[in-house]
């Protein structure tokens, strides 16, 4: 059974009569790491939000774990990470991670045990009593990941999580994320506009094109795991980066205008 199954999905925004997504068909299998990549306005974030039932589709069906998306959201079938870490300033780091567990009605002892586990997973042991503003941007993002994974969801949705970080931190967190993905055995849907990041992380890269948002191409990434710093230097890595780049440019109308 697919973790995510999208059929004949279309999303039209009434305001401005914009077709954000058209005829999206996509199935994501358990344990996959799928990146959605495309220029701004291609609807990649909208697609992620529709999977998470934060936006309703205009037509078509979305199932998560075999259930309709609203049911899956109510059942806590996915965790989500946004571009900003969206941590609550008034809560300590540990209490931020515990937030979704409070929603699930876990008792204090069980929450503490799980929070400790998650803090170890994202390598932030000893920072539980800090407040979010006392942490660096990269650390805040790790807290957001720990929070999203706190109730061990089958699916992790990530909306440009490292977009606001510097290149060094971003590359380090990419490796962190692969380790966490491997340890948590979850399925990841990852929105990004970085080709390098998408190729480095993913099992498949879904290339989207704008106006209206469509799937232009799906590139399978056959680089072996575990991936590390050396992966970025392999010839196959460069070939795949080139392949994704070409798919992106083919899909974008603007780039088809020849340069005079």
């Amino acid at each position, binding site marked *: 059974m697919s973790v995510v199954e999208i059929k004949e999905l279309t999303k039209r925004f009434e305001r401005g009569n914009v077709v954000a997504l058209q005829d999206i068909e996509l199935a994501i299998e358990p344990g996959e790491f799928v990146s959605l990549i495309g220029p701004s306005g291609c609807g990649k974030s909208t697609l992620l939000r529709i999977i998470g039932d934060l936006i309703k589709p205009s037509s078509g069906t979305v199932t998560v774990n075999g259930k309709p998306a609203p049911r899956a959201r109510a059942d806590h079938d996915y965790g989500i990470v946004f571009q900003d870490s969206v941590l609550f300033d*008034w809560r300590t780091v540990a209490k931020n991670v515990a937030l979704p567990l409070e929603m699930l009605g876990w008792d204090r002892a069980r929450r503490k045990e799980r929070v400790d586990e998650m803090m170890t997973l994202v390598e932030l042991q000893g920072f539980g009593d800090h407040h979010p503003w006392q942490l660096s941007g990269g650390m805040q993002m790790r807290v957001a990941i720990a929070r999203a994974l706190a109730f061990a969801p089958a699916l992790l949705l990530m909306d440009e999580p490292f977009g606001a970080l510097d290149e060094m931190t971003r590359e380090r967190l990419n490796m962190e994320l692969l380790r966490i993905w491997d340890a948590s055995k979850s399925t990841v849907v990852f929105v990004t506009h970085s080709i390098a990041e998408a190729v480095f992380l993913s099992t498949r890269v879904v290339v989207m094109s704008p106006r209206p948002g469509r799937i232009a191409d799906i590139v399978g990434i056959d680089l072996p795991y575990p991936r590390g710093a050396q992966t970025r230097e392999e010839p196959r890595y460069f070939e795949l980066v080139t392949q994704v780049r070409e798919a992106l440019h083919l899909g974008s109308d603007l780039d088809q205008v020849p340069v005079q």
Partner: protein
Amino acid sequence: MAVSVATTLTVLGVLVGGWELYRWIWITAGWTWPFIVDDTSMPHIHTIVQALFRRPTSGVGDVLVIQLFHAALFTAKEAVVGFAIGASVGFLLGVVMSEWRVLQRGFLPYVVASQTVPILAVAPIVVVYLGSLNVAAWFSVAVIAAYLTFFPVAINTLRGLQSTDRRAVELMHAFAANRWRVLWKLRVPAALPFIFSALRVAATASIVGAIIGEAPSSIQDGLGGYIVNFNQYYTLNPQNLWATNIVAALLGISFFLVVVGAEKIVVRRAPEHIA
């Protein structure tokens, strides 16, 4: 700490010096604009301070400052109760208006209109109504103070609750949090800085409300009673009214500082977010 004490003393020194300097210049130059300066309109600071430590002319009773201290405690009780009522009502109104947009459209004009009615017109009505219900007079004054305090709290609570980060709301939806949870775990804590800035305003407003409310209630035990009384004898003893004003100001400042202290304990934000 030492720095803030030094700053406070410096500011105080400048104010006292400024008062005396202004007096001296206007009197020596004989200037009459914007008002005539003499011992009645601007008594010396030292006569005001002396007045604080003078016994009543009748010879019975405490020195003025002790009397005013007791009066301030009485007024403070009215103000604190009024503040508690006003802040609670204001907070609830803010929550109701933010959660139900229809009610916001219905309530908000009346909430605003309530503040355009002069408190001096409302106060006697409150006193008469509550008096007919055999409510203690001081409680009527508390209600008048509440009338002044609920407004800033209601408006700022509404604004705070509506300025919640949109992505944080999305996050709560992703956790399948119901409306109640979104309110208590996100909107209210996020609105606390807004609510506290309203509470600071409300703290001083509640003192003003209590003092104003004492006049139509014929309450003699509070600062309002002293102000009405000293006002009648202003031409004879202007320093008494000034002394009472100083005590009233100190009361307002103390209440304000209590709220600021509570805010420091309750509101945990990044340092740059604390106003």
